């Protein structure tokens, strides 16, 4: 197994991370670290454990064993809210949007703005401010929405995906986890979303790292600088794009080297 050596304190370090579901080892003793502005592709067959790894980092799944460090400090996330407080934003494979809400309500899902003064103390929502801010953020996106007040249930699969990714980008953070962000997208839409991700990374004021899961090698190749390959829950390769080839990556995914 190759492991590129990187200088400086890693943004993220994982040691011996495992998640077992009964006898299934969804994730098995995975260790790696991630530098400040790296964009890493996480690859592997169906059931390889990619989503499980992302969920462990996002606080949505509690690992059976292993440690997670951010900037050298150990973190234990027992809820998604705790991971988000540490600047980890996630786009889940199943998107996790509320269909009956519009874009702004989904952006602020779980972190709604409340009004100032006594109304705020009673938890009264500040819908106007939320809408204004979400609108301003969405207008900067390359993707266009005909109607910003439209409910998610009226949107296409691609539009929903853009909403979910924009939500993660809207909150910024220092680590972005994207689980198959382009899976339901057509060629044109996927290109737009990838462009958006690229813009988000380069626009980020502070350093921002990203882990992207995708089954589409072209997408991975166009945005990532490094590739992690999972196979049956184990990390089988950690490669720099500049030092590998697609053939080698595919061989790792399919297990040709086993």
């Amino acid at each position, binding site marked *: 197994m190759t492991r590129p050596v990187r200088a400086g304190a890693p943004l993220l370090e994982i040691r011996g991370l495992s998640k077992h579901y009964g006898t299934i080892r969804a994730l098995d003793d995975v260790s790696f670290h991630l530098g400040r502005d790296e964009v890493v592709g996480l690859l592997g067959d169906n059931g390889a454990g990619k989503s499980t790894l992302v969920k462990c980092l*996002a606080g*949505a799944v509690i690992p059976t064993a292993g440690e997670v460090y951010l900037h050298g400090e150990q973190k234990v996330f027992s*809820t*998604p*809210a705790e991971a*988000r407080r540490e600047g980890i934003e*996630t786009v*889940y494979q*199943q*998107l*996790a*949007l*509320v*269909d*009956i*809400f*519009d874009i*702004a*309500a989904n952006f*602020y*899902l*779980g*972190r*709604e703005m*409340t009004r100032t003064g006594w109304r705020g103390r*009673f*938890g*009264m*929502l500040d*819908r106007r401010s*939320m*809408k204004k801010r*979400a609108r301003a953020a969405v207008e900067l996106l390359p993707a266009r929405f005909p109607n910003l*007040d439209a*409910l998610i*249930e009226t949107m296409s699969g691609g539009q929903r995906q853009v909403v979910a990714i924009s939500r993660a980008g809207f909150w910024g953070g220092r680590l972005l986890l994207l689980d198959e962000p382009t899976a339901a997208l057509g060629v044109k839409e996927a290109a737009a979303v990838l462009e958006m991700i690229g813009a988000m990374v380069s626009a980020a004021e502070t350093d921002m790292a990203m882990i992207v899961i995708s089954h589409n090698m072209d997408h991975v190749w166009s945005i990532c600088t490094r590739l992690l390959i999972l196979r049956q829950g184990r990390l089988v390769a950690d490669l720099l794009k500049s030092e590998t080839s697609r053939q080698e990556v595919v061989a790792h995914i399919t297990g040709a080297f086993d």
Partner: protein
Amino acid sequence: MSTEDGGSGRDVRGGGRLGALYEAVISKLGSRRVRFTAMQARVGVLVLLAAFFTFRSEYFFTSTNLVNVLVNGAVIGIIGSAMTLLLVARQVDVSVGSAIGFAGAVFAVVARDYGLFWGVVGAVAAAMAIAAINAVAILRFRVNSILTTLATLVAFRGASKLVMDGRAVRVEGFRFLGRTRFEVLGVEIPVAVLVLLLVVAFFYILMRLTKYGQHMYAIGANPQAARLAGIPLERQVGIAFVLTGITVAVAALIVVSQVGAVSPTTGERMEFLALTGVIVGGASLYGGRGSVIGTLVAILILAVLDNGLVLLQVQSFWQEVMRGVLLLGAVVFDQLGRRESEVRMEV
């Protein structure tokens, strides 16, 4: 177009004879696009029913009778408000009828032996105990809410008979809630009706204007997304069960005060009446939909129907048939509306 109740709007053109009639009326009025919301439909039904009964019975549209209608709907409306909140979050509580009976029984027995104050305390404690049992079973042990509350419905009907020794208990000196009336604009409004309006206003604000309400709609529409967004599901739903307990206690005190006694059947079938109102009011057992205003209008429809049929001396069995028809109608209407739903939740 936005609907106040999170209900659905639909195009009514092309719906057989009624549709044609509607079309004809509207084209006379010169409007091109005809859409109306489920909420407007409910209000329409209420107005039509009221008009019909006014036409058929000279007694119906008197202030005395209208106040009667409100009083009859008050208790169901109070527990229906809390039940709307539960349904929005994909939960239900069918134990409220027995809970009212049990809280009432505890009240009557404790009040008889220790005085009214401790009676009220006992009623609140009884209602909260049932709410706590429901919440723990549903949220901690993950039992489905229908099954849990069905079990408590059965168990606490028995428990209230135990408390009362199977006999009705009279309650002395507690007529205030049931009998006091305040004069508002020349009409004598009973306390129960004022309580109903307060409860509806409270739930309206809670559900429409607060972060908590927003969370409850999210939990009902997509629990997984709500959890991943960091919404504390158990806590928020638990609060709804506590609120249900409080409305049960209030409802029990009103019932006891109105009747002046508690019997083994006090509160019976109220869960079905409330649930009927909540569903006719636009909430769905699948969560994410519903509003207290819809529930209030639906419960008024049901109360007007009961009252009107009595005034017309229609055999009382028809009331039940009509209730069932309304419920089925509402569910079918809801299903049709889903196809081109226009549910609005503004941010």
